[in-house]
């Protein structure tokens, strides 16, 4: 029969195909690379987004190059990017990156300003202090080339996916109200974008995408995939 036992399936050995094979309408063989991460209940909807954006074969090849203990994180990040790309086909998750980057620059400017004032107030003797006037024009020079590259040591995915995990990852187009990454409603392909889209458009036109190599190594898997 078509129902074959899958010991590595996360659905407790239910015997049905995983979400990916169910979506692809194919037999779920033992050792299926998708089975541990796309169960037969919610996995089909998650996999639909991944399949549309990345393609099943591309994701399969990518996962094979990732160490097994890192694959759950890889699948979560791939699902996140696929959802972001479907929600915003123009900018995908780049709009979130640009928005966060602008907030960081803004707070850095404000902090420098306050610290300059604190330095003058802490003088032990009544002397004429030198107050540097911080320039706020640096925001205009920020472009896509200022986007950061990866620093593997500070990853904390729980804050990113906490609002996501609490709700279904189905491919519904309705906006999800949240203070986190999904706080912006989805916009149509043809019409003008929201605030995130405007930010992303401004910075993408500001310069070429960064192509410099990352100073820190991102693991043994990247050396296999990365072509220099």
């Amino acid at each position: 029969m078509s129902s074959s036992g899958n010991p590595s399936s996360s659905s407790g050995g239910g015997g049905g195909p995983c979400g990916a094979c169910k979506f692809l309408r194919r037999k779920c063989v033992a050792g299926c690379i998708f089975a541990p991460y796309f169960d037969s209940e919610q996995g089909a909807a998650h996999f639909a987004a991944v399949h549309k954006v990345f393609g099943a074969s591309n994701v399969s090849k990518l996962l094979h190059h990732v160490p097994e203990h890192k694959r759950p994180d890889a699948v979560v990040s791939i699902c996140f990017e696929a959802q972001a790309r479907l929600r915003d086909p123009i900018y995908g998750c780049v709009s979130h990156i640009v928005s966060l980057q602008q907030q960081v620059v803004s707070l850095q400017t404000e902090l420098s300003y306050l610290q300059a004032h604190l330095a003058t107030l802490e003088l032990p003797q009544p002397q004429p202090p030198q107050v540097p006037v911080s320039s706020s024009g640096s925001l205009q020079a920020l472009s896509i080339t200022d986007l950061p590259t990866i620093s593997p040591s500070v990853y904390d995915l729980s804050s990113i996916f906490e609002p996501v995990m609490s709700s279904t990852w189905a491919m519904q187009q309705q906006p999800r109200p949240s203070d986190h990454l999904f706080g912006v409603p989805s916009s149509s392909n043809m019409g003008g974008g929201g605030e995130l889209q405007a930010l992303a458009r401004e910075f993408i036109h500001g310069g070429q995408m960064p192509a410099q190599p990352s100073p820190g190594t991102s693991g043994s898997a990247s050396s296999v995939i990365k072509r220099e």
Partner: protein
Amino acid sequence: MASSSTNSPCAACKFLRRKCQPECVFAPYFPPDQPQKFANVHKVFGASNVTKLLNELHPSQREDAVNSLAYEADMRLRDPVYGCVGVISLLQHQLRQLQIDLSCAKSELSKYQSLGILAATHQSLGINLLAGAADGTATAVRDHYHHHQFFPREQMFGGLDVPAGNNYDGGILAIGQITQFQQPRAAAGDDGRRTVDPS
């Protein structure tokens, strides 16, 4: 068969080893001199998926879409585990740290604003500093810097003799403090020169 206007195929058709048609959807965004850009996008997203995605967009939106796809592909190849999510996580971490530092700086600044003694010792300067910090405007800082030029070091203490016309709550306390500080410098010869505060 003559090609329309280009002598060489775009980077996509060159990579895929196919003829670059005049209506090629990749040609405007993958010029022949950027082969790596398409190679990355093709490896992560696949040429057919990108074709479908671009065809669903208005032509004026495709350039931004291609550049964001190229960025995501580059990040995914640099870090196959986290990709762009690693960048988002890093930025969120930086944002949280900055918010903590900013909260500490504001808390420390509020302590100085409540200390009358410090304000008294720097009355004409300190008030401007506190006002500038409270308003958060660069104008106050510039005014302070301009104001500073009228008081060379030798005249700093002479300036304290000017009666305080502002509504600073520590005014009474400040006057008392000035009286105490004046006594040790009674022999100073510069006390005779008094300049009017321009502000």
